[in-house]
């Protein structure tokens, strides 16, 4: 009994409007706190980005306060409601931040100096549906693809696969060879199966933006062939994942690859920096293979991270100064190079030094970019489409659900609340 009571106590105290207002005695220095889910990036913010800003803006002290990614959305919401959130809020793309703006928690930033440095596409993730107001400064996008172990590819004498058949031939060869696990991915944490699986290879099937917009318009359904096919391909991955992949977590997969035990890693570009630090072999990357040679390729180039301002923040002037700096080309270059794999959305071309990051970005020239299908508009309701896709993608790879069942289930969930505009 005590445990439930303790849980309730915890819930009520955390969520009760906290009466504590931080006493900011130092009137001259404005303290800014950045709420973020990027706890991996803490050292980079503390050592590179914040000092660069503080050197130019004496009198403003910035603190980067990250928390666990899965808890970020609800925690930051609770903080905003209770009035204890920091001045700067890292923005998830699309529907989540939009909801915060509509509740009046995020300030409009349309007139911020430096906003003109971004294209409409870049701003789309943090702009109201009517396109009039932007409420977060776009920071970076991430691109999905596959990272591979160059040494393993040389040993096996295989080329980078361009088509799906080649892709499975490469996997088969590694499986026969036995030295390497063909592909490092697990389904225990579920999100990998969707984010690195379904969202990664899917755009080639539903033709990127075309399919995504058709889904929003209601002219396509998740049960259409274009949306079921990627599940079928995912189901074929099963034999090439390591032994016991059902219990393999995300860090397990990362370690398997960086220790050189796996040949291919279905990735997002955010892996580049940590992989560079861990792996002592050469890495390359390839975009999701297309069906037939010569097909147009589509990649998931997802606006992933922005920075907004707490509408009820205590230091709006200082926060605006910081945001204007975030919108500057100077920040773009600093950020893109400190965190290779987070690609700047700034219109000014950014010089990147990292070869692997350049490889990822080079796909933008030939392939058509799109964003994750569950992010915008169809991701607003309950059940949350993103979470549903995590679950069914993991089920499909585990073989506990057929691709058709998975598709039908997500469509049923979507139908329960989403009525496309006719």
């Amino acid at each position, binding site marked *: 009994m005590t445990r439930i*009571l303790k849980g309730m106590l915890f819930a009520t105290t955390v969520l009760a409007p906290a009466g504590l207002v931080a006493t900011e005695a130092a009137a001259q220095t404005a303290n800014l706190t950045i709420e973020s889910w990027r706890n991996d990036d803490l050292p980079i913010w503390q050592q590179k980005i914040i000092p660069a800003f503080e050197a130019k803006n004496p009198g403003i002290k910035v603190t980067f306060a990250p928390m666990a990614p*899965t808890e970020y959305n609800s925690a930051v919401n609770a903080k905003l409601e209770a009035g204890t959130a920091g001045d700067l809020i890292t923005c998830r793309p699309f529907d989540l931040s939009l909801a915060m703006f509509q509740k009046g928690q995020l300030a409009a930033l349309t007139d911020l100096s430096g906003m003109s440095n971004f294209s409409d596409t870049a701003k789309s993730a943090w702009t109201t549906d009517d396109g009039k107001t932007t409420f977060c400064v776009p920071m970076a996008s991430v691109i999905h693809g596959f990272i591979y172990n160059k040494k393993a590819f040389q040993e096996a004498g295989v080329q980078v696969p361009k088509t799906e058949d080649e892709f499975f031939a490469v996997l088969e060869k590694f499986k026969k060879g036995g030295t390497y696990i063909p592909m490092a991915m697990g389904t225990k944490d579920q999100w990998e199966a969707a984010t690195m699986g379904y969202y990664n290879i899917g755009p080639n099937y539903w033709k990127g933006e075309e399919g995504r917009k058709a889904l929003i318009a209601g002219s396509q359904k998740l049960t259409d062939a274009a949306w079921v096919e990627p599940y079928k391909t995912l189901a074929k991955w099963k034999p090439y994942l*390591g*032994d*016991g992949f*059902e219990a393999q977590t995300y860090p397990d997969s990362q370690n*398997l690859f960086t220790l050189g035990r796996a040949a291919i890693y279905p990735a997002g570009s955010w892996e580049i920096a940590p992989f560079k630090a861990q792996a002592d072999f050469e890495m390359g990357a390839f975009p999701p293979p297309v069906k037939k040679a010569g097909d147009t390729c589509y990649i998931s180039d997802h606006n992933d991270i922005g920075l907004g301002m707490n509408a009820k923040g205590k230091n709006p002037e200082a926060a605006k100064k910081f945001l204007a700096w975030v919108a500057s080309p100077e920040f773009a270059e600093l950020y893109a190079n400190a965190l290779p794999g987070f690609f700047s959305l700034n219109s000014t071309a950014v010089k990147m030094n990292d070869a692997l990051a350049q490889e990822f970005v080079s796909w933008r020239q030939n392939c058509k970019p799109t964003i994750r299908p569950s992010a915008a508009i169809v991701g607003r309701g309950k059940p949350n489409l*993103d979470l549903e896709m995590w679950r069914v993608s993991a089920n499909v790879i585990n073989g506990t659900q057929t691709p058709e069942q998975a598709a039908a289930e997500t469509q049923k969930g979507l139908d329960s609340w989403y009525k496309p505009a006719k």
Partner: protein
Amino acid sequence: MSDTEIADIEPVPVKRPTRWHIAVFLAPAFLVYTAVMILPLIETLRLSLFNMIEGRLAFVGFDNFARLFSDPRLSTDFWNALKNNVIFFIIHMLVQNPVGIAIAAMLSVPNLRFAAFYRSAIFVPTLLSFVIVGFIWKLILSPIWGIAPNMMDWVGLKWAFAPWLGKPETALVTVSLISVWQYVGIPMMLIYAALLNIPEEVLEAAECDGITGWSQFWKIKLPLILPSIGIVSVLTFVGNFNAFDLIYTVQGALAGPNGATDILGTLLYRTFFGFQNQMGDRSMGATIAAVMFLIILAGVSLYLFVIQRRMRRYQF
């Protein structure tokens, strides 16, 4: 004798001064307990009757409960969690408590060597943080880095190893057994204490009547420790229906695979606090918490008013 007789015999009691000190001594505990236990409980129950309507918290009566049981998705989740929770409890009752009783019975055998050592060793996991227990077992059972596959290989059982935590069929049983491993010390200690309380004379009398060994355990000791077993069962029941921590550390808040290890605690957490892109819904969370409270209340009342009253107690 009856009450009236007493009243007749006893003189009118002397009026004593009001005993203020009792209230003074009780006050700190009472106030703290009220502030940190009773008020939050009442607040949670109250919140379950309210919901956000157009941005404002409004009284909705039992609407939340109706929605929890009628909304196809919510009710599926809820019944799945309840079913898993019942299985979780049954496994504890079938494994943890009998094993605890068996260990206690063995420990209470006189002249057992290293009894103190075994007693402490078996009790230690109970004292460990669930975070440590969850993490250790996750590592042991990991198909990649774990020692379980290797150790099973040494004894030729490699074929029997599977990624238990990742398979929907086995995940719940595995997590339950981890929990059993952690908490088996509690029934052991309680039963052990009860066994030590049995007077020597009773056992000697039994021996004179020729009841020794197994039949002594079944016929003499077990009936005498039944009240303790009852208490242990209630503790297990309450603990299991409030469980959350171990599942959260081992399987995450999604309690995968495919909700196979989702119990009421994890469902409450996800609903109340939200998870990833799903926002927290406090009213629905409070509703689930209220239902959990009622389930536990029902279980405990059943024990207190039905079972405990029929239990025979022996006074020595």
